[in-house]
């Protein structure tokens, strides 16, 4: 039974009992959706369908449907890919790393954060697939015995590393997520009555895998979560490091940089937390979780954003310094061109959204306001998208031989696909919010005594 100093603000507001928690968590699943939900859901489904259309068109006619050319062979596709992967990171970090650090405040948000991770990675996974010239041959990137001699893959290729990293990341974090979900499903199962909603009952019985909360199971449960957390933590760092190696191991000035792995991971956390905030602030309204997702949680995350944001800023400066210090003309020009070339605006957007704006979090009032946080988190998301765009496009469009210098501009297909994935993401997330226990109630109950406001008040008396 862990105690906690009184001065810490409560993480669960209102005088909740275990039963209240159960009721609150189960409510969205059992009750009807409110109108916000329907509005958002309709919107995202629409975007999603549009995106599907654009993807179909691309696969039908060819990558030429995008704005790419012989010099800039990657642009929005990989930008979006890296962006989504980045977003995918906060989830696992929150649940894994914070679990290792025994951070209690993670418990209210880790479920949703992980959901976000998985849905984010799903979006990310789409891009390597559709950006291929011949997506119907995508299975060639997996080593499987074949009649071609047999013919294998090239394990020197960072893209192949990606394949392994992302598939591992996606599956492992899914499993991690699901193991945590089982007791909560069981809870919902047990609340469901056979007579009123037999179908739902059946469904959740299926999902609950027959969990009954035996002491031994709980013991194993905790051990497994701990180990998975231990595994997931290096995984988080490895995945984005590997993604960064797509660029770091190449020869293109502006890509060929050793600081990319840490720099990308930080950026990932940065954007990931921003996205978590965006989502949670929406969610706590949409499925009324005000009591569990408190300003305290938001503030903690803001602190992390402030921290990572500043580190990312440092990374930008370091890049510039290295370019200057290396004395390599190509490097120097690459970065000069980023800041002052035709894509200066993208660079400016990146700098302001990622480095300058987060500095506002030094101010307590902003740090602890839902509205401000929401807006800022949007900014950070945009900024991080631009970071990837800047890295990819501005490096490519002017590389070694000026004769092949050119520029990139997206077609409506590019845009459509990007919006499509956003739509897809929110569709998944909203559906999740209505059918899954959005807060890990089992774990939450363990900290009710230590961090619940009622108990804290008790101790004050």
């Amino acid at each position: 039974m862990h105690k906690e100093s009184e001065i810490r603000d409560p993480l669960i507001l209102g005088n909740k009992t275990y039963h209240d928690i159960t009721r609150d968590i189960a409510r969205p699943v059992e009750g009807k959706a409110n109108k916000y939900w329907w509005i958002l859901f309709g919107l995202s489904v629409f975007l999603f369908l549009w995106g599907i259309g654009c993807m179909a068109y691309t696969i039908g006619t060819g990558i030429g449907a995008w704005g790419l050319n012989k010099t800039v062979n990657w642009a929005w596709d990989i930008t979006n890919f890296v962006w989504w992967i980045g977003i995918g990171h906060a989830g696992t970090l929150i649940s894994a790393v914070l679990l290792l650090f025994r951070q209690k405040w993670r418990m209210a948000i880790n479920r949703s954060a992980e959901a976000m991770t998985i849905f984010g990675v799903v979006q990310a996974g789409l891009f390597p697939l559709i950006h291929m010239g011949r997506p119907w041959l995508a299975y060639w990137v997996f080593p499987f015995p074949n009649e071609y001699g047999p013919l294998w893959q090239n394990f020197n290729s960072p893209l192949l590393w990606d394949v392994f990293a992302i598939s591992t990341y996606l599956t492992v974090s899914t499993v991690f997520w699901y193991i945590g979900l089982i007791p909560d499903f069981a809870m919902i199962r047990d609340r469901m009555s056979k007579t009123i909603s037999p179908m739902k009952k059946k469904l959740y019985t299926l999902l609950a895998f027959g969990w009954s909360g035996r002491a031994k199971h709980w013991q194993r449960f905790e051990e497994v979560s701990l180990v998975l957390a231990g595994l997931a933590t290096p995984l988080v760092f490895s995945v984005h490091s590997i993604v960064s190696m797509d660029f770091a191991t190449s020869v293109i000035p502006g890509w060929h940089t050793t600081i990319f792995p840490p720099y990308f991971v930080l950026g990932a956390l940065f954007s990931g937390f921003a996205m978590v905030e965006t989502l949670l602030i929406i969610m706590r309204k949409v499925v009324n979780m005000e009591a569990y997702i408190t300003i305290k949680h938001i503030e903690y995350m803001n602190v992390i954003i402030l921290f990572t944001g500043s580190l990312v800023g440092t990374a930008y400066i370091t890049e510039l310094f290295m370019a200057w210090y290396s004395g390599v003309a190509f490097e120097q020009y690459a970065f000069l061109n980023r800041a002052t070339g035709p894509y200066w605006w993208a660079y400016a957007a990146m700098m302001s959204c990622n480095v300058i704006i987060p500095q506002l979090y030094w101010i307590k009032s902003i740090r602890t306001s839902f509205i401000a946080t929401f807006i800022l988190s949007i900014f950070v998301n945009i900024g991080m998208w631009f970071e990837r765009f800047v890295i990819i496009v501005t490096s490519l469009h002017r590389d070694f031989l000026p004769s092949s210098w050119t520029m990139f501009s997206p077609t409506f297909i590019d845009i459509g696909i990007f919006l499509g994935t956003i739509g897809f993401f929110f569709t998944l997330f909203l559906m999740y919010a209505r059918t899954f226990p959005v807060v890990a109630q089992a774990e939450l109950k363990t900290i009710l005594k230590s961090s619940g406001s009622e108990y804290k008040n008790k101790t004050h008396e």
Partner: protein
Amino acid sequence: MMTSLMKNRLLHILVLVFISFSTVFSQDAPAVIDSAAVLKGEQIFKANCTACHVMGDKKLIGPGLLGVTDRREKEWLKKWINSSSDFIASGDPDAIAIYEEYNKVAMTSYYFSDPDFEAVFAYLKNPPVKAKVLDVDSVIASEDDGINTSTQLMFIGLFLLLLVYLLTSLKNKLKASLDQETETIPQTLFNQFNLFIGNNRNIVFIALASFIIVIKFSFDTLSGVGVYTKYQPEQPIAFSHKVHAGENGVDCNYCHSSARKSKHSGIPSANVCMNCHTYINEGTITGTTEISKIYEAVGFDPDSKTYIEGYEQKPIKWVRIHNLPDLSYFNHSQHVVAGKVECQTCHGPIEEMDVVYQHAELTMGWCIECHRTTEVAMEGNEYYTELHAQLKEKYKGQKITVDKIGGIECGKCHY
């Protein structure tokens, strides 16, 4: 794949064996002559003569040439071969006789250099007795071992059953001696089976095993997609390679002339057929029915032995059997001439086939396998002299296979 390959190699070896044999045969010929000449003669004969003559008594366009050396003088033959028409004109009775016999067709003239002529003569003198047959048998033999293995399996199965029977009966005997109730064989098996599945481990084991089997099976079937081994379509003309290449011993090269020059082996144009079938109007198996199809195509009147004037010729639409995908570049001459590969290595015992079928899988794996195992024919090829030296230096003692000179690099076939 392996087995077919093994067969190929076996066959390859056997063919070599046969060649050595033929020399052996020549050894016990009465006169002392060098076998090299015979071999050379054989090549020349195959290339030039087989169209009209067989090494036997059978008549083709011309007479069978078995034992012709006894019938005719060397000089006489030389004259006749060099220019039969002049020879006939010169009024030699035998010549005229033959001319008359073979409906007044003078033999095409060949100007062999003396050594060549000597070689041919030597060959005619020392024909490879039944050599062909030997070759053929061996091929069949090699075909057979597939069947052998299966029969062996059958025997093993029987043996096991027998064993079961013996053991159970033994057991019963023992039981009887201890006067416990005995079981019939089915009972035993049944009980044993129950015991077996009673055990969880076994269940798991079975599950795993079946799972693996299923995987293997599906993988095999999948990898079999697009493999058309034994593909044997109906052809517009029931042309029999057995009759032509096998029995009449027409050299592959005679019809598929471009195999040594080009990437395509080439399907003979109708006028090549007509070279012989102007005179041969009746086939051994199908009589006139099939041959008349050629006449129909080119517009030839077999009775008057003339081409019909202004006849609109119809192309013969053969069905292609060996189809490589277009993305892979294959060159016949590369393999036949530079690589010194026998036709049969890939096309199987073609001279055995009445209707041709696809012998090899023609999958990429199949190509690669062969390239990994086949040695490069470097000896006596100026092109390789320097390279060969370097390679021997590099791979001391190892076989220098095709892959060692880059034979399994993508760019060698895909461009």
